[in-house]
């Protein structure tokens, strides 16, 4: 059987984590290609629906990346994201899904290595979890 390759959707803020991901590339730091990034202006604009939709469509993990606490380009969007993620995790848990598939990380524009390490970590942890069962149910 082919090795399980998790599908990871990343919602990254334009100013910090997206720039950090760019820096990883500019510095030629290698990380697994499992992550597919959607650029948003701020982690605070991540709607709970985006995360739920990604999980329901079969993403094995979702990463929300924002600026470090206190460093948000829009003052406090990352705090809003943090609160929202807590809610989304609660919803997932209520529905009997694994909240461990949702990741939120603060990665600044200068932390290319941290971005690469984060992706690697998510891939490893998600491999332990196995494929998103929701996706398999859709496939019946």
């Amino acid at each position, binding site marked *: 059987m082919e090795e399980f390759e998790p*599908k990871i*959707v990343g919602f990254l803020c*334009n*100013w910090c984590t*997206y*720039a950090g*991901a*760019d*820096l*990883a*590339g*500019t510095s*030629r*730091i*290698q*990380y*697994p*290609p499992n992550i*597919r*990034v*959607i*650029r*948003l*202006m*701020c982690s*605070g*604009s*991540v*709607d*709970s*629906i*985006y995360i739920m*939709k*990604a999980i329901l*469509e*079969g*993403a094995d993990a979702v990463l929300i990346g924002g600026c470090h606490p206190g*460093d948000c*380009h*829009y*003052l*406090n*969007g990352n705090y*809003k994201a943090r609160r*929202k993620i807590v809610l989304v995790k609660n919803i997932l848990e209520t529905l009997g899904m694994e909240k461990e598939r949702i990741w939120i990380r603060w990665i600044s524009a200068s932390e290319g290595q941290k971005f*690469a390490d984060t992706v690697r970590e998510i891939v490893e942890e998600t491999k332990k979890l196995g494929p998103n069962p929701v996706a398999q149910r859709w496939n019946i």
Partner: protein
Amino acid sequence: MSRVGVFICHCGVNIASVVNVEGLTEFASGLDGVIIAKDYKYMCSDVGAQLIKDTIKEYNLDGVVIASCSPRMHEHTFRVVAEDGGINPFRVEIVNIREQCSWAHDDRDKATKKAKLLVNAAVAKALLLEPLEKSKTPVVHNALVIGGGIAGIQASLDLADDGFKVYLVEKEPSIGGRMSQLDKTFPTLDCSSCILTPKMMEVGNHRNIELMTYCEIVSVEGSIGNYKVKVRKKPRYVDVEKCTGCTDCVNACRMKGKVPDEFNMKLGNRSAIYMPFPQAIPLKCTIDPNSCIYLRTGKCGKGPLCVEACEAGAIDFKQKEEIVDINVGSIVVATGYDLLDPSSLYEYGYSRSKDVITTLELERLISPSGPTGGEILLPSSGEKPESVTFILCVGSRDETQCSWCCRVGCMSALKHIHLLREHLGTGVEINLFYTDIRSFGKGYEEFYRSTRAKEVNFFRGRPSEVRCVSDGLKIDIFDTITGKLFEIKTGMVVLVPALVPRADSEEFARIMNLTRSRDGFFLEAHPKLRPVDTCVNGIFIAGCCQGPKDIADTVSQASGAASKAAAILSKDELENDPMIAWVDPVICVGCGICVEVCPYSARILNEVTRIAEVDEALCTGCGACVSACPSNASVHKSFTKQQIIQMVDSII
């Protein structure tokens, strides 16, 4: 149905060596809604741009997807190309297949598969992208400069000479800042006040500069082109229109010689009513409410002597604090730095001995207008020192204090050595403890060499402790060059403390919406390419508030910030970024959550219609209101929920 074209860039071999560009082009041309897909070696080149423009015309496209480098790199370039090609510039979507694909992955198949998914998602979004129009706001042709040190002075003069009205706000009673406290400047040994005073006078007399000393910023609202600023004018208790600057009141004051003088680093004393220093601009007296007997107790003898002494009748104890509103188009922040208080570092003995002083205190001792009239005397005994020892990097380059280099300490100590030799002759022994001598600027290395000829004992290392003994100070220093431990007996120790962010910088950053770097200094938009911009459009930074620097660097940065500020002011109107929030009035129920969520006060609940509105000049397009809106009435243009959800669908 939209007609989208996909353009895939090889970026030389940067993309093409990892991603199968031909395969990707073939994949893209098969996607729904894609009319044509093309690849080219350098899409951002003139030829590539022409290819895009020609293809738009040939296939009558109304949207484009460009798979190339990061949108942070060339999004603007391609928007312009699309506009030249005849389509709305906001119907362009960039796919990042270089930084986030070909450069980060080396497996050709996996990278190509990822690139296909990214293109798929971008096409899904591009099909839904709406054409947007840029709105315009008029520009207020005034500037605000905050801080009246050399950075603020230079920025104000540059802006005023360009013909713009400048409000220069300074919190102290006089402009001049730290530079006015210096005696001489390195490496030329220019007299600081000789080069600064003419500039200060020019500021005072400039018809375009409105000087607001003894004032503080209370709040800043609005956005680039139109900031509304509230300034607190502290009461001087002196009518500046009447005060002639004669200082008769200063000499008459009952507190004369009893109040520690901040300008002289508390080495001397002043009166409760005082002139900060002889060259002060404006040359007006100020009453310090914390030490004035009349202001503290409500009476002063049989009547305040200053009132009696002032022939002009300028003393006015009834003055009250005022809030002044000003309206400006751009802002230069030049609020300067603090010196680290060395009393927090026990080993240097600053709090144990009067003869352990800082460089700024030595400046005041050397200055002819200082408390000793330019005589270098031991603060404890009033005698001339026989030996002076400099300790560099006090708190600087120290993991436990400030990790950064203060950039001026080495040079200022070398300058003092020149001045000490000038004032005290060859008889005095001079020691210098350093970590590294950093003489990086123009003419600095030469200055350092000339100092080495001044018979100075250089020790490389940091002392373990400054000890007070009966007849002076003793210091243990392990010299890492010779590998030997020395015990030095000396009369005076001069500490060169770290430059740190101002104590109020956190509060000030909050008022201005600025961000600070880890060290606490204000953060520039880009460390190399946008060194005077901040994350707030229209607000620029200059001088040591951004990080330690010397006078020459400060002045060039101030001129840079001023010209950036002037570039905004020289326009009649500014184009607003159209990728902001919008409210669908049919759906909005007027719950007001967006008003609470918006960090920029750009959301208003219309009292009449009970529908939320967006102030387009204030909205920065963060999207917080959109994800908070419970009824989906808020829309983030170019990042709509439908667009993002379509992307999610197509990316998995």
